[in-house]
């Protein structure tokens, strides 16, 4: 199968449980297709260079950067965005802990932080502080200084343990 970037073609994948077909150029960034074609604007663009993690999504269960994924590479994949995560009752404690703990200021990094935290807590439901640091290593925040964010993830883990 060969296509040229000068022509659009149909690409199908599942986003937040919903089958979607978009007509796009194969090397458009998955980030742009999610935001512009599917109007899922919860996923943010921070740097657009793979440094900041604001555009993190799950692709086939794997945490990845949608600004570095050509949409053609996501063909046939199952994608979960921040919209899918916050709608999932299993992860309710996390956005709540972020809100209550002042872990969001401007809010651009918050969706990506929550995605990275979900990924971490799925693998390791009771992480130590250094494991939280490592799990969020790919996500930059220019407002909070990170302490509130790490504390929110720890708090969410504590609440899940006592729930």
């Amino acid at each position, binding site marked *: 199968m*060969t296509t040229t970037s000068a022509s659009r073609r149909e690409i199908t994948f599942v986003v937040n449980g919903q089958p979607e077909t978009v007509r796009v150029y194969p090397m458009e960034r998955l980030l742009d297709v999610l935001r512009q074609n599917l109007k899922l604007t919860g996923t943010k663009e921070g740097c657009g260079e793979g440094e900041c993690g604001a555009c993190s999504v799950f692709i086939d269960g794997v945490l990845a950067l949608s600004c570095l994924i050509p949409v053609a590479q996501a063909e046939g994949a199952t994608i979960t965005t921040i919209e899918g995560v916050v709608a999932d009752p299993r992860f309710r404690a996390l956005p709540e802990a972020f809100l209550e703990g002042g872990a969001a200021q401007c809010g651009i990094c918050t969706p990506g932080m929550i995605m990275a935290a979900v990924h971490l807590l799925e693998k390791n439901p009771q992480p130590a502080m250094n494991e939280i*640091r490592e799990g969020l*290593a790919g996500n930059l925040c220019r407002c909070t200084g990170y302490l509130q964010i790490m504390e929110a993830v720890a708090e969410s883990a504590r609440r899940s343990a006592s729930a």
Partner: protein
Amino acid sequence: MEAFEYARPASSREAVKMLASGNAEVLAGGSDLLQRMKDSVSTPGRLVSLRDARDLRGIEYSPAKGLRIGAMVTLEELAAQPDAHRHYRAVAQAAEKAASPQIRHVGTVGGNLCQRPRCWYYRNGFGLLAMQDGNSLIPNGENQYHAILGNSGPAYFVSPSNLAPALIAFDAKVRLLSASGSREIPLADLYVTPHSESDSEFSLKPGEIVAEVLVPPSEGSSAFYEVRQKANFDWPLATAAVALRMNGHTVKSARVVMGQVAPVPWRSPEAEQALAGKTIGADVADNAGKAAVEKATPLSRNAYKVTLARVAVKRAVLRAGVMEVA
């Protein structure tokens, strides 16, 4: 971006056919390539995705044959492989330290070995050697992250792969694949220092790809140490991989390979010599570090890297010398 073709063949054999003609580039995880295309540093006419080439996936280990790593194995898969941790600790440590969780999930072993230098002259369109009027801009320019060894010119960039030094410390080979067949070469020979702007920093022939990495059996102890500005998710300033073959408490033979210090992964026979026949301790490790940078020739702004490389070697030796350190 310029217009180009996109192809997603179902096997590596089909992929190399598509790479055989035209200005084609191979797309693995895409983390490096997409950046280069956005910045117009790379302008391929055709992209060939290896996503569906199942034969390039998988990690297998056997005590007799060692470790075989498919080029499309992700850094995360390698970092999580128990046999890699048990028998090739330096390799597993390099994989688990690379970039961020998000990038490790997508970035591949082949892509890590074949990523292009991070040199900011190169990334900003000055070319790999940053030549202007017959001279490189780098020796008297912004060279704080550039080479301290193997830098007699005209190449001053540093080889960016953090897996390569660790794999070379185990004498890994790579199997290369092209439309005309396959060949095996030592991984160390994949890297060459370019002498002109038209040279590549890889010995790959046009249309040739890395298909798999083959690491021979190892019974020794090893470690990888990175010096970075930030604790997490940062390009290292200097790295060292050390693999030891022991005879009781004495080093029978050692491999010491440094990263981020030269245009190629830099093996240090001087440091290896300083370790042979010794018992690992603070003095011996210190001497190995000193020997490793004995011949360093820093540029105008990167003398600090000599110290960092020395310390990286010293600490990698100490880690490798203690078998049970986590």
